[in-house]
């Protein structure tokens, strides 16, 4: 039985991944901040798919990566897949000066907590042959804009760290690395917002991510057509780009 750890598993894409992996028979270790969401999900997946699901309610803002690792290993006996899906954005305010606490929160949850967790699992990942290290980035990080300033920066930092992980793991018989520049997802993060492009259902995103397990794909867009959109955006000359409200 495969063993997967999902950080940010109680809602949105993380929850969809938990369902998908449970359906494939993976035993799971799920992390999010609220036990009230995690416990029902664990019950549901256990009843429907007969897998072992252990949960840990932990706030990534005050992450104890050592504890996550210790609990995950004691529940699963090892780790094949580590999926770092949690993210936190505040698009309504993340445009210009925000409070230091908010900067800290966004950098911690999107970047430093993620690095801490991967770092804690590196020994397992180095030996997880056939395993996967999956990261959730964002198209918001591809070209800096006046919206999602800190969020975009944190996700770009995360992308850089995943690139390094891919390099570090490249010559080892360990996990393969997949990092996704995600486009809009139909989740609470964008609920009620008017979006310029269609949003992908989290189940479809989860299906695509799991389909790429085992592949050494590095960074890629999900859905793929975002490549075209972001390439065009990157090609917009600065004199025009600086006038755009995007």
């Amino acid at each position, binding site marked *: 039985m495969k063993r997967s750890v999902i950080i940010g598993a109680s809602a*949105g894409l993380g929850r969809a991944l938990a369902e998908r992996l449970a359906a494939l028979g993976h035993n799971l270790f799920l992390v999010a901040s609220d036990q009230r969401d995690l416990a029902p999900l664990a019950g*549901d997946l256990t009843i429907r798919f007969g897998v072992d699901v252990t949960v840990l309610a932990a706030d990534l803002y005050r992450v104890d990566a050592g504890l996550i690792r210790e609990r995950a290993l004691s529940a699963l006996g090892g780790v094949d897949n580590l999926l770092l899906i949690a993210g936190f954005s505040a698009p309504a305010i993340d445009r210009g000066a925000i409070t230091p606490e908010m900067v800290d929160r966004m950098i911690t949850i999107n970047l430093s907590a993620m690095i801490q967790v991967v770092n804690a699992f590196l020994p397992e990942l180095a030996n997880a042959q056939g395993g996967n290290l999956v990261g959730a980035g964002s198209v918001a990080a591809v070209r800096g804009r006046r919206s999602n300033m800190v969020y975009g920066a944190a996700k770009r930092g995360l992308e850089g760290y995943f690139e390094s992980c891919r390099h570090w793991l490249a010559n080892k018989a360990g996990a393969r690395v997949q990092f996704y520049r995600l486009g809009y997802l139909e989740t*609470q993060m964008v*609920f009620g917002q008017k979006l310029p492009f269609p949003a992908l259902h989290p189940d479809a995103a989860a299906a695509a991510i799991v389909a790429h397990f085992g592949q050494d794909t590095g960074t890629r867009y999900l859905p793929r057509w975002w490549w075209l959109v972001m390439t065009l955006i990157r090609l917009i000359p600065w004199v025009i780009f600086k006038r755009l409200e995007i």
Partner: protein
Amino acid sequence: MKTHFTSLDRHVSCECDYHEPDRWRNLLAIGAEPGLVARGSGLSYVAASFSEGGTSIGMRQFNRILALNEQARWIEVEAGVTLGKLYHVLIPRGLQLPVQASYHTITVGGCIAGNVHGKNHGREGVFGRHVLGLELFHPRHGVITASPTENAELFDLTIGGFGLTGIILRARLALAPLDGAEVEEQTIPVGSLEEAFREVGRLQNEVDMLYAWLDLANPHRPTGAGFITIARTVSGPPVKVEAFGERLEPNRPDWRRQRVFRAATLPWINRLYRQMGLRHAGPRRVPLSALLFPAVGKEFYFHLFGEPGFLEQQVLIPSPAVDGYIPEFRRRLTRHGVPVALTTLKAFKGGRRHLLHYDGDGFSFTIDVCDGRNARALLADLDDLNTSVGAMTCVIKDSRLSAEVVRRQYIGWGELRDGLAAFDPERLFGSALSKRLEL
């Protein structure tokens, strides 16, 4: 988010605020504002889960199965779980919900709040009979546990209470053993409405499911010939739990929503349907899902009324009134000249009249007509007939039913209204349906 919701019969459209929380902390943070109402899949024919300027709380994300006790035969679920999801979990374990509405995306919350009926009322009664307990959220009262023994009055008001007591969070439901893995189905011709009522009454104790499909598409010759479908579950190979494809979405624009049902086409369509029904008379084996969710695969039916939509009247006629009812019904149908797109008949037995529950003894007689002036005049005329014979109209199916008619047909109208006012003097929860019925 501001959203436009339309009832399934396309009769009522409202702009309201819509929230679809996916975490408990967001759900329990819902503030005390008037016009709140929970929404399951929005498949009620009437505007039961929204109102103009109100706030609908979508429960789709709260769809997890919390506990299952196969020995004691109960399941605990979040209220947004669909009947289709439960089907996939329960059927392979040889279990089922005793009462199920006919479509896979209908939620448990919708079944409790609408106190829906299933395939064999005489044997299983209505959905509420199998609810062992529930948890409800009301912004003024917090989270309350209710069951027949704990907060029993609130429990009673919540079953068939159209979401007006608060948001059902979780429920524990009794389960029944699965009688068989397959279904043997057969159709029997009937030549008239009279024969259909007689045969449905006679056969109701002998089979697991029965309903009559009758042809009243020509209002000038409304004989009501058609066929009765009877079904028995039989043992067979282990059930293959197939995925359900389509889902009805009354709020999405759909190019297939084209008006095909008209006075000129309906008699032909009904004739064809009757011939098809009789040609494949059976007996034949069909999958269990065809018995439990007969509307799956037939979603196009709702599209054929086009954008103007349809009106449904489903009435529970007491058995002793049937003989007098049929000729009078026919006379009014002919007088108004309204073709009926769909006519069905089921038997109800052993239920009790309570609040606004569509429950009791008799025959559940349903007609669907294209919305229009004549159709409304016919249904208003039938309201009088129904009231005079002691029949009850299913309130969650009929978008034009007035508070006055409901007051006259249901002895429990006042009890429900008073009970709601006592529990929630501010009456925070409400929908277009509750406003129309002056609840």
